[in-house]
């Protein structure tokens, strides 16, 4: 197994405040990894370092084989990103959104054309390609956003609260797309503070005050904390801290 993310005592300080405090963890190829923590626990800062947007204060991290400190631009080209809040341009058509993101990631015109057709066919959106993304139902929008994040064939995709607030059927359809991508070898890093999303991940880490306080499969964590669900694990961990 190959590590797609590997960090060693990765830290970030802002003045006297330590936002991320020496976190060390690995994420394997094809793994669905849940990166959890309360608001202010340091998740966002850690993510910014892992996606090449913020330089670490100390420690190491490699993502998709590149050092985030030395090669942040290489990292950015090899990752995909999707969040429920922002992912596609609502006032562009489906086809234009695909072209825009393909272009941003440096795909050739020919590649973009071919991938667009394949993607529309897969999502059964051939007849809708000229419609504005804003007019699509939420479920379609999400599937499309995820497919667009995979367009440049990144080794790893970061998903930020991908299914919070959606209906239970859309949520299942979406998780199946995630499972499918993982089965194809894509690594998925899911950040969320909704514990019910965590239950779907292969392994999860929980950050408290800048540190990773627990890292395991949801099942092992529930057992270790004698908890019925991840919500209870989280409460016990945060209370004990």
């Amino acid at each position, binding site marked *: 197994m190959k590590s797609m993310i590997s960090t060693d005592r990765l830290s970030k300080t802002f003045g006297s405040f330590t936002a991320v405090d020496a976190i060390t963890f690995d994420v394997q190829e094809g793994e669905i990894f849940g990166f959890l923590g*309360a*608001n*202010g626990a340091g998740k966002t800062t850690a993510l910014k370092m892992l996606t090449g947007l913020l330089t670490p204060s100390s420690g190491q991290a490699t993502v998709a084989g590149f050092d985030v400190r030395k090669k942040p631009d290489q990292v950015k080209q090899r990752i995909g990103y999707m969040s429920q809040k922002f992912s596609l341009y609502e006032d562009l058509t489906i086809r234009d959104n695909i072209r825009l993101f393909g272009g941003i990631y440096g795909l050739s015109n020919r590649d973009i054309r071919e991938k667009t057709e394949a993607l529309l066919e897969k999502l059964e959106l051939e007849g809708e390609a000229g419609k504005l993304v804003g007019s699509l139902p*939420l479920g379609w929008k999400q599937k499309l956003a995820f497919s667009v994040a995979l367009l440049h064939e990144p080794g790893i995709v970061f998903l930020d609260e991908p299914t*919070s*607030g*959606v*209906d*239970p*059927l*859309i949520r*299942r359809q979406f*998780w*199946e797309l995630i*499972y*499918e991508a*993982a*089965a194809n070898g894509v690594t998925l890093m899911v950040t969320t*503070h*909704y*514990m*019910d999303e965590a*239950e*779907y991940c292969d392994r999860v880490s929980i950050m408290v005050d800048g540190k990773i306080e627990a890292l395991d*499969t*949801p*099942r092992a964590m529930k057992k270790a904390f004698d908890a019925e*669900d991840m*919500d209870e694990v*989280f*409460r016990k961990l*945060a*209370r004990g801290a």
Partner: protein
Amino acid sequence: MVEIEHISKSYDTLKAVDDVSLTVARGEIFGLIGPDGAGKTTLFRILTTLLLPDEGRATVDGLDVVRGYKQLRQRVGYMPGRFSLYQDLSVEENLEFFASVFGTSVAENYDLIAPIYVQIEPFKSRRAGALSGGMKQKLALCCALIHKPEVLFLDEPGTGVDPVSRKEFWDMLRSLRTQGLTIVVSTPYMDEAALCDRVALFQKGRIMAIDTPEGITGAFDHPLYAVRSDNMYRLLKDLRQMEGVADCYAFGEYAHLKMQQDAPAEKAMKGIRAYLESKSHQDVEISPAEASVEDCFIELMKN
């Protein structure tokens, strides 16, 4: 305490609330459970007199939401989904402001908010915009309570709040109920349904079911099993091909398998195991599962 009869509301061609009827009894915690876009906020705005319905009628505490809107506003507390306070005012100033709008003072109704307010009092001179998610939520609740309403409407109070604060919040709601307050709360989190006295499952502007949480889950009328193996993606695909399967979907670390017909559990599980082993699944685990509100929601959506 709340009576809704055939309320509908459309925005252009979108029917946000579609012929909704329900009643909420005094002293009840009533949950409106549904995803984003189900119409929860529209219904709340109608009940708090901020939006006129196209059709139907509703009363809150005996007052019509259209004709009695002026009096009604004194009797309802409303905590909108988005943080509604003045970010530039301090905790204390926000509270005083909301009290003065309703012609009362913080001192007059302090008893009601005291158990909640003491938790944020140490930060009373901090600007509301600088509070953490959980503290903002507590302040918003204090502001919605400061005029001593009869009915409290809480629109997605758990959204954006971590599990620790979420639990504390529900504990507060239960203690408010013991003081006779009626609480109507909306949430997209199916697991919060269990914390309500009664719930309405809400989807695309319509109510799919109204009952106690136990009544909702008790109405699930198929045998249900929790299954796992070493490969979830393949597991879901294979189980759907199995004979006698009504539905199969991911449910956390398990797949929930809904069978078409009743059969002795031991026999059914043996059959499922044999099938999965023939498909060379490893580490297979099967156990009977209790239907959750989310299972019921899925079933109702598909019907």
